[in-house]
Structures are given as structure tokens and as C-alpha cells.
């Protein structure tokens, strides 16, 4: 927790320095996962790239071993999955390995969003992950720059939709069943509020030619709950064997 204190303090100061958000919709607040039988944000799903494979493991959903939601894996990735030892996941040393932003956004945990003019911060409950999305027009760092589980994100408003592009993502599990994405994965996201402002929709679009063919995507939805807050996660590895 202490290791997060400094970056959070920095981000809080940066946000305080930002001007009013202006005409952009406000995503500020606490958001809890919305479990839906039928997607309420179908319009966002309809705007996904043609042919994108929609991965149906969001929220409480999970894919079993060998189920990759119809995504066509590259031969190296298939070999990787064949060699994967699921029992290793139960080891103490792997218990608290956080997933990357490719997987952690879909987890059934809430988040807080702090929105400024020049940046947006997403404080995720799952594994205490924190994302910073720069809206000030800065470029992405060079390819050789360090990668991280949250990557490097820039964003802009496209009308009422926040468009975020993320690079420099450290390899991590893609579907939590033995298949990992590479460090070259590119993530494009579209965040949009429902007309009443109480539901937040997100689509994530992934391209990673090193591990799978074509384009994959996920859809997520959250409900705004004023007055609630994210709990500390503080993963304890002693759960493992």
C-alpha cells in the first residue's frame, strides 16, 4: 500500500492543478460491476471493428481450459498453452502476480474514476491497480521504454466517448486459462456513459499479431454508486501452497 502512496499523491496533485473538465461527460465517481443478462450498451458493441471476436468472460464469467472464445491462436501461442501448468497458479509465488490491463478491467471488482482536463485516473480495486490516461496530447514513449501491467495510456474525447489507446503493456494472462498476450499488444478502448449517466460502458479492442489472428474485444458495464469507495486489495501470497 505504501508503494502506491507516492504515485497516488502525485496524481492527486496533478488533478488538483487541472482546470474544469468543460463539456466532456463526467466519469467521476465509484463504479461497481453491472451484471447483465443482456448488454445495455449494445450500441457500443455494434461499433466494434467488423470481425472482432467478442470474448465472453467479463464480470463473473470465466473461460475453461482450452476455451479461447473462438479466437484463432498463432502456432507459438498454441504451443505455449499446451505447455502451461495450471498447478503453478496455486503456488505461493504466483498467487499475487497481477494481470495486465488486458485482463484486469473485466474483473468483477469496482473502481473509482478521477477526471481532470488533462488526465484521468482509474483506481481499480482488483490488485490495487492504478491507471493514468493522459489527455494532454503527449506522444507514447519509444518502443524501448519500460513496459508495465497498466501500460502507457493516452486519450481524447470523440464527442461523448472517451477513446483511450494503450501501449507498453507487460505480458500477462489474456483469458486466465493459460494463454498470455505479448508485450506488443495494442489496446484501444471506448468509454461511454448511458443517457442517464448512471451506467458506464466500455469496449476494449485488442490486436496482438504475435499471439492471435485478427482482432479481439471485450464489453463491460458498471453502475455508478455515490458514497461508496474502493477497498484495499493488498494481496496476501500466503494463500498459495
Amino acid at each position: 500500500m505504501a508503494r502506491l502512496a507516492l504515485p497516488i499523491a502525485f496524481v492527486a496533485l496533478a488533478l488538483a492543478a487541472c482546470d474544469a473538465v468543460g463539456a466532456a461527460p463526467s466519469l467521476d465517481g465509484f463504479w461497481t460491476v453491472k451484471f447483465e443478462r443482456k448488454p445495455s450498451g449494445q450500441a457500443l458493441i455494434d461499433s466494434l471493428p467488423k470481425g472482432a471476436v467478442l470474448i465472453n468472460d467479463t464480470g463473473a464469467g470465466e473461460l475453461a481450459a482450452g476455451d479461447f472464445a473462438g479466437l484463432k491462436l498463432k502456432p507459438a501461442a498454441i504451443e505455449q498453452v499446451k505447455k502451461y501448468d495450471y498447478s503453478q497458479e496455486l503456488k505461493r509465488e504466483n498467487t499475487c502476480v497481477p494481470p495486465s490491463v488486458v485482463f484486469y478491467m473485466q474483473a468483477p471488482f469496482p473502481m473509482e474514476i478521477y477526471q481532470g482536463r488533462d488526465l484521468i485516473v482509474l483506481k481499480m480495486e482488483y490488485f490495487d491497480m492504478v491507471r493514468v490516461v493522459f489527455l494532454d496530447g503527449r506522444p507514447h514513449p519509444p518502443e524501448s521504454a519500460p513496459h508495465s501491467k497498466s501500460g502507457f495510456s493516452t486519450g481524447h474525447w470523440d464527442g461523448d466517448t472517451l477513446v483511450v489507446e494503450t501501449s507498453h503493456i507487460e505480458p500477462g494472462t489474456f483469458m486466465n486459462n493459460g494463454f498470455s498476450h505479448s508485450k506488443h499488444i495494442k489496446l484501444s478502448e471506448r468509454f461511454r456513459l448511458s443517457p442517464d449517466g448512471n451506467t458506464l460502458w466500455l469496449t476494449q479492442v485488442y490486436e496482438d499479431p504475435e499471439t492471435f489472428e485478427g482482432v479481439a474485444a471485450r464489453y463491460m458495464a458498471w453502475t455508478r454508486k455515490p458514497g461508496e469507495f474502493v477497498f484495499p486489495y493488498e494481496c496476501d501470497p500466503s494463500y498459495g501452497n
Partner: protein
Amino acid sequence: MRTRKAALARERTSSRLVGIAAALFGFGFVASAAAHHSFAVHFVADKIVTVKGTVEEFTFRNPHGLLMLTAKDEKGVEQHWRIETNSPNILRRRGWSEDSIKPGDQVTVEGYPARDGSPSMRVYRVTFPDGRELVGQRPDPTVVPGQD
């Protein structure tokens, strides 16, 4: 002099090997990244088992709470069950806490069995002798008790 030359040659060979290893690791080959375990991979989602026994230990920390339970199987043989909960963060919002279950408590636990056949499960529901219930992972997350 010869010894010094030999040492230099060894150093060069060694640095070359280190260079080759570094190149291999940096090539971008994707090894499977370790991950926090999946429910679907390790537990059977469409089957519920029931165990009645005595609590040995209860810990309530992320990523999963753990309930260690002593119970007897159908032949009367004592078994030690390792029962995990879903994340305590999720359960706190449903009324669970560190003190919800104590060593010595007699409980009935229903849950999703481990795929490997070991005495292990992910908890669905814990019931106490007085009828009190703690709900863990619901079979259908879209159905909230009392709101369906």
C-alpha cells in the same frame, strides 16, 4: 602470461554466452505469464457438494479467504477440507468479516468441487446450526438474493 590469456579468453566466451542468453530472452518470445488462478479452470461450476464439519481455521485475506474444515466422509474417515471463498472484498459487501467464522464452529458448507478430486472447493454458502447463512459465490451472479 599464458594463464592471463586463457583467463581473458574464458571471460570473452563467458560474455558471449551471456550476450546470446540476453538476446534469446529479449527476442519477444511469449512465455505463459503466471497468473492468479481461474475459478473455471480449477473448479466445477455446475456441481455443488455439501460438507458438514468443524472449522479448524478461517483466514479472510485477498485474493481468497480460506476455511479449513474437518469432516467425515461417508465411510466415517476424517477428511481435511481446504475451502476457498471468493475475494474478501466482494464478501465484505455481503456482510462477511474476519469474525464471521471461528475455529470450532460447526458449519455446513456447500460449494463447487475441485476438478482434481481433492477435498477442496470454492464456497457457495455456509450455514450455521442456528440457520444463519453466509453467501459466497452465487450460482448466477445476475440474481441477488432478495432482489430477484
